[in-house]
């Protein structure tokens, strides 16, 4: 992914303000010819000069540092991989120029592409369902058999002139009975499609929530303050133990905790290891749920109920969430955020993080949280006066599918599907429970430190399947020496580096021997 070319944006803004190149150049202290190079995207701009230019153009620095453009460019890059656009031979390198000149059109294109992907995925899923759903298969067969019986009896009545009264009555009755059965099948089919329509889920809410979190930098100061206030008021400012949380939930909201044998719970109730029985004011946990998961779910339940106003405040007038599904999903994400803030209070967690040099396993042990929960918290350390290393977060299931992501500038994470197979998030499955680290280099030359570990989301038992996921954090290689995972790594030596791409389809490494799919451009 090339660096963002914001020159076009500067030019468009300058023109909108009716300013000449010479005037702006003088204002920011450079020559007009140099400004011309910048506006033509032939020179990068950053640091102090970028700040001065933003001020001169009356723009927020955020809108000029290229982060928004990079994200849009990632979306457009994915769009170029669409098979229906193959004949247009779109050059991904033109994305930045397009974004700079026509930001609203770029955003409109991305929104339309998302909607198209959403509908295409939905249609494919429905088609697959129609072809393989046993209920539908049986219903269609029954319906056509009923119709055949009605047709056959009707033809007999119509064409056979010497039927006696008894035979005529018999075939009349067959038509009547089969018509009734046909009505019953049709009613069941109608009910089935009614239910299917109500349950259809768009893929877009997940992406809208991703955008919402990203736009906030995955840091919500309001929630941090609310969580801290709850901790101070309820737990004297200390990380809450499971017993403390259970007591708080009972006293403040009348919610009781119940542990039940796994065999007594349905699969639906076992999702996330926890069932919120709102009718009876209890949280029911399976006896196989890990301790860290139970503690987190209790904290989340407390956050949903005690910090509901703070969560709503973050979502109020959030225009990126265009549906109820997206709003609910974002609300759940924020209650998880608040739970993390309660279990790993910001100040003490940051202090320990720096002291332990980002040793995630030791942090998880100290705060009695899971590896994934600790990784999540590390991504949220964005308080302006007390910031941690900026990380990307990615979670993949054992099939390789990316199920959760939080991106980083210049490190494109796949929206749906799989990342490059060489990423540490996948090699971590080869050694369950062990941290795999990697110095990874993109075709752009950008280098990152990846470290990943696989984990089970449920307690393993002899007879039950143990679903594994892999969690990876990634940071720019310049931060590697601040972490234990960078120890011994020579970040500038080629021998330590693994050449990677985003995904095969978008990767320009034409000669990569691990390539699984042809790239959209080249080869």
């Amino acid at each position, binding site marked *: 992914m090339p660096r963002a070319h914001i020159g076009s944006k500067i030019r468009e803004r300058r023109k909108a303000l009716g300013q000449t190149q010479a005037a702006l150049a003088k204002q920011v202290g450079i020559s007009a010819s140099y400004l011309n190079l910048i506006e033509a995207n032939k020179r990068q701009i950053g640091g102090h000069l970028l700040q001065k230019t933003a001020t001169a153009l009356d723009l927020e620095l955020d809108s000029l540092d290229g982060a928004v453009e990079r994200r849009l460019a990632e979306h457009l890059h994915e769009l170029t991989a669409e098979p229906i656009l193959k004949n247009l031979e779109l050059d991904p390198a033109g994305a930045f120029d397009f974004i700079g000149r026509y930001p609203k059109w770029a955003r409109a294109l991305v929104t339309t592409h998302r909607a198209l992907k959403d509908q295409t995925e939905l249609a494919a899923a429905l088609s697959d369902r129609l072809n393989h759903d046993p209920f539908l298969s049986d219903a*269609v*067969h*029954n*319906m*056509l*058999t*009923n*119709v*055949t*019986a009605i*047709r*056959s*009896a009707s*033809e*007999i009545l119509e*064409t*056979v002139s*010497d039927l006696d009264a008894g*035979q005529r009555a*018999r*075939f009349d009755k*067959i038509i009547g*009975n*089969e018509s009734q059965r046909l009505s019953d099948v049709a009613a069941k089919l109608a009910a089935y499609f009614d239910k299917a329509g109500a349950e259809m889920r768009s893929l877009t809410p997940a992406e809208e929530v991703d955008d919402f979190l990203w736009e906030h930098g995955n840091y919500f100061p309001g929630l941090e303050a609310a969580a801290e206030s709850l901790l101070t008021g309820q737990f004297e400012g200390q990380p809450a133990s499971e017993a403390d949380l259970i007591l708080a939930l009972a006293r403040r909201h009348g919610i009781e905790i119940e542990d039940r044998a796994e065999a007594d719970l349905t699969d639906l109730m076992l999702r996330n290891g926890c069932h919120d029985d709102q009718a009876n004011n209890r949280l029911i946990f399976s006896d196989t749920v890990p301790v860290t998961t139970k503690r987190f779910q209790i904290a989340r339940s407390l956050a949903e109920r005690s910090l509901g106003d703070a969560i709503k405040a973050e979502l109020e007038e959030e225009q990126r969430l265009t549906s109820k599904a997206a709003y609910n999903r974002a609300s759940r994400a924020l209650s998880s955020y608040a739970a993390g803030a309660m279990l790993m209070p910001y100040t003490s967690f940051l202090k320990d993080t720096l002291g332990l040099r980002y040793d995630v396993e030791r942090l998880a042990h100290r705060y009695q949280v899971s590896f994934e929960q600790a990784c999540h918290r590390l991504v949220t350390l964005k308080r302006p006066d007390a910031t941690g290393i900026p990380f990307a977060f990615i979670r993949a299931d054992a099939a390789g599918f990316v199920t959760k992501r939080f991106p980083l500038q210049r490190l494109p994470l796949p929206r749906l599907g799989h990342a490059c197979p060489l990423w540490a998030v996948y090699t971590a499955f080869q050694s369950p429970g062990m941290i795999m680290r990697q110095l990874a280099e993109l075709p752009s030359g950008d280098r990152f430190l990846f470290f990943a570990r696989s984990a089970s989301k449920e307690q393993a038992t002899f007879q039950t399947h143990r679903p594994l996921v892999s969690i990876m954090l990634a940071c720019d290689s310049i931060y590697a020496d601040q972490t234990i995972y960078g120890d011994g790594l020579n970040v500038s030596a080629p021998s330590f580096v693994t050449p990677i791409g985003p995904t095969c389809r978008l990767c320009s490494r034409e000669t990569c021997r691990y390539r699984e799919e042809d790239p959209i451009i080249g080869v």
Partner: protein
Amino acid sequence: MGVVSLGKRVLIAEDEPHLVESLSFILNRAGYDIETALDGEAAVQSIWAMPLDLIILDVMLPKVNGFEILKKIRADARLKSLPVIVLTAKGQNQDRAMAKEMGADLFLTKPFSNKAVVAAVEELISG
């Protein structure tokens, strides 16, 4: 009614009893002796218990499905050339291909007309 038997016996293996009744009526009027089976097990018993001149076989029979029965028929040297008409509610190419591969002589998709059934039986039995 005075129908003259042609001396040809047809087995109708179909689990919808009203459809069996209608098909039996029209084929009987056309001169054929009719045996019926309402599930796959009954069909298998009939096929190997008596001489037949043609089988009308529904694919989605309970207990043993039509394709399995067809496979067993073609595996038996004595029944290799017994004409079989396969009935199905699905008209998909894969079912036609499967029916052909298993050795069906004709393939009728529901809803079919009485005329089509009689014509198919006449064609296969006389041929």
